[in-house]
Structure formats: structure tokens, C-alpha cells
């Protein structure tokens, strides 16, 4: 049996039924459903000049529904902003503590102190040896290096 061709009046009635589904409290999902139904109706319309104004109306309605959906979605997303602010703050605190923990676990500080101590002791030994050999210029240079080492160690310990 051949499919009966849709008349303009039938198409217009179908369009009206779909548009009537839009309520003031329709959710974005319900509105999207209306939009999909309009697209399906457009697919069904015979491609004849007579139906062009209805095709135009369908396209126009779809664009306006899309605007209503977009505004509702943006408002909905906006309403959850506080949750993100709270979570970000909480996570930043936890991360900063965890990063500190990781640094302690790497034993960077004791390794640094010990290494500086080693260098300092070597300098002290050098100073004693130079002093015994009455090489006071080298002893003084080594003493200066030792002071720099100790100052550097002090500031590193303070900052860590």
C-alpha cells in the first residue's frame, strides 16, 4: 500500500502538538526532546514549496528552544560554583602538605646537612694543616670558604 502524502494542515497540526509540549517549567532535557521531534517532523515534510513556511517555523523554533536550553544549562552550572571553590581550597591544602611529606621522605635535608658538614670538616682539617705549615694565606682562604659554607647551611636549614 502506498504511503498517504502528508497535507499541509496535518503537518501544521503535528507542529502545534509538539510546540504545545513546551511548558514554563520544562527541563532542558524535555526541551531537547521537543527539538528532536521538530527535526523529525522536518524530515517528514514533503519537499514542496507549500511546506517551506512550516520548515522555516520549525527551524526558528528549534533555534529559540536551543537558546532557552543554553540559558537554563548555564544557570544550572553556575549554581554549583561554590562546591568547586570549596573542593579546590581543600585539595590545595592537602597537596601542599603531601608535597612537604614527600620532600621529608626523600631525606633531602639530612643529606644536605651531612654533605655540608663533610665539606666543613675538610676545610677545618685543611686550616689546621696550613696553620701547622705556617701557610696562613691558604688557611685564611679556607676559613673564608668555611664561613660561606656554614652560612649557606644555616640559611638552607631555615628555609626547609
Amino acid at each position, binding site marked *: 500500500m502506498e504511503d498517504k502524502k502528508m497535507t499541509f494542515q496535518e503537518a501544521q497540526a503535528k507542529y502545534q502538538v509538539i510546540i504545545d509540549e513546551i511548558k514554563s517549567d520544562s527541563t*532542558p*532535557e524535555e*526541551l*531537547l526532546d521537543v*527539538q528532536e521531534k*521538530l*527535526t523529525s517532523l*522536518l*524530515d517528514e515534510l514533503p*519537499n*514542496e*514549496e507549500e511546506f*517551506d513556511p512550516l*520548515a522555516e517555523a*520549525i*527551524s526558528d523554533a*528549534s*533555534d*529559540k*528552544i*536551543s*537558546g*532557552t*536550553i*543554553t*540559558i537554563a*544549562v*548555564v544557570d*544550572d*552550572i*553556575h549554581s*554549583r*560554583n561554590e*562546591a*568547586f*571553590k*570549596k*573542593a*579546590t581550597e*581543600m*585539595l*590545595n591544602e*592537602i*597537596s601542599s*602538605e*603531601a*608535597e612537604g*611529606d*614527600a620532600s*621529608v*621522605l*626523600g*631525606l633531602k635535608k*639530612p*643529606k644536605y646537612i*651531612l654533605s655540608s*658538614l*663533610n665539606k666543613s*670538616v675538610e676545610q677545618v*682539617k685543611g686550616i689546621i694543616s696550613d696553620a701547622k705549615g705556617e701557610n696562613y694565606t691558604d688557611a685564611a682562604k679556607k676559613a673564608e670558604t668555611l664561613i660561606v659554607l656554614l652560612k649557606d647551611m644555616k640559611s638552607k636549614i631555615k628555609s626547609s
Partner: protein
Amino acid sequence: MSLYSFFNRKARLKKFTKIGIVSTILFFVAVISGCAIPDVRPFADATTTLSASVRAGGDMLITPLSEKPIWVEKKKKYIQPKDPEHPGKTLEADWKLRREAMDAIVIYSNSLVAIGEASANRQESAEGVVNEVKKLASLIPNIGTTINAAGDLVVFGLKTYIEIKAYHDMARAVKSADQAIKLVAKVIKEDFKKLKTAHASILTAKLTKSKKDIRIPQRNYEQYKKEQKDLRNKILENLDDQKLRDKMIETDALLAGVEPEYTSLQNQIASLEQEKSNGKNFFNKTIEAINAWAEAHAKLSEAFEKNQSPNLVLLAARAQELKIIIEEAKFKEIIEKVK
């Protein structure tokens, strides 16, 4: 055996017995404390991928939205993109908070990895400290030999200390963050459900417009195509009819005139349909991935609570799947098409 060597052996035996006892105690402390540090890298990788998809998801809507006049039903008018009240501007500012939250989660997951790495490198770190101590002792007379003998025990002790501390540090961080992770997962999921609707809606409006626009070119194309076929049949019957030949040339020209627009609109419709389907797939997969990701973190927290090893293999697989979706979807191209 001389009396001296007898006492020397006895003293050495006593010293090794002491080392043995201390080692055993440390070993048991380590076991009791549940020191198996889980490899949290799959979680960190999944977080990085998820962070990228949160950015992509926002851009998929922000970019086309920012350039489109939006109908406001309450005002019964279109808001232009330059208008400060345009929803694209609000969404852009709101999405910045989502990006910041995801950045904070990426930093958090990387800090867990850093704790895990510090624990994994404990042998090297402990040896580093002991070597420095040995070096220092060798510079001071009469201390060197004692430190050398105790070196292995100190390395073992430090290793155990790092392992126990790493476990407890990671457990504390994971437990503290779980509430925030659950919160982010819940709200991001809600956001993505809405983004999915808005994205589908914008594409549906574009599709509807293209389907409306194609009607006249399609009608003309089909009409000229039919005329061309009829003329061809008539010419076959009257090969010498010049009028028919002239009409055929005219029809061919008309067909050639409408064909590019018709083909272009056909391609546009096919591309929008594909884009709509890709977007739906992307948002659905991201929602699935968010669920898996939050669940993995909850499992991690639970595992620390019960001193068990969490299973992060499934999460690693999901993260990989999501990464492939993001790469395959070529979101930049999608955004360009939606404009």
C-alpha cells in the same frame, strides 16, 4: 685460641645478635603498619586525562556559544555575543573554576606519586645519608669503624622509617582528600550531563537549519535531474532534434549551477550528525570515567583504612580508553564545525 680472641668473638657475636633483634623488631613494625605503598600512578594518569576532558567538555560548548546570538525567552529577543549578559561569558567564568579544581586534583595526585616515589627510592636515600655519615666519620679519628659496622643497620632502619612514614603520609592525604574528590566527581558529573544536553541542542538547531536550507536546492536538483533523464530518453528517440539537444545543454547548466550548494549542504548535514553523535559519545564516556575515577579513589581510601592493596588496574584501563576517545574525537575540529 687466645683469651683475647675468645672475648673478641663473643663481643662480635653479641653485637650481631643485637643487630638481628633490632632488625627483626623493625621488620615487624613495618609489617604491622601495613607498609605496602600502592602504585598510584594509574590514578594520577587517569586524573590528567580527566582534567583534559573537563577542559575539552567546557570548550565544546563555550567556543560555539560565545559567537552565537542566543534567544532569551523572558526578554523575547536575541542577546548578541558582545552583550555582557551573553551566557557564553558566564559559562566561561564558571568553567574557569572547574579547570582550577581539576588542576588542584592533578597536583594532589602528583603529590601522591611523589610520596610513592620517595618510598620506592628509600634504599638509595637511606644509603645516601649513611654514606655521608660514613664519610664524616672517616674524617674524625676513632669513630669510622663503629659507624661502618652499624651502617647496614642504619640503612635498614631509615628504609623502614621511610616506608612506614610514606604509607601513613599517603593514607592521611588520601583520606583527607576523599571528601573533596567525591564532591568534585558529583558536581562535574552533573555539569557534564547538562553540557551534553546543551551541546546536543546547539547541534540540533544547526542541523534543523541546514535541513531547512537544503529544501530548495534539493528540489531544484531533483527537478533538473528528472528533466535531464526525460530529455535523454527523448533524444534517444529523436537523435536529430536540435531543440531537444539545446534544452539538454540548458538543463545540464542549470544542474551544474545547483549541484555545488546541494552537495555542500548534504556534507554539512552529514558532518553535523557525526559531530552530534561524537559529542554524545564523549560526554557519556566522560561521565563513565568520572564514576570510575571517584570509585578508584574511594577504593584507595578504603584500602588504607583496611591495610589492603587497592586494585587500580581497572582504572588504568578506563583512563587509557578515555585518552583514546579524546584523541580520536579531535575536539578542536568539532569546535570549529559547531561555530
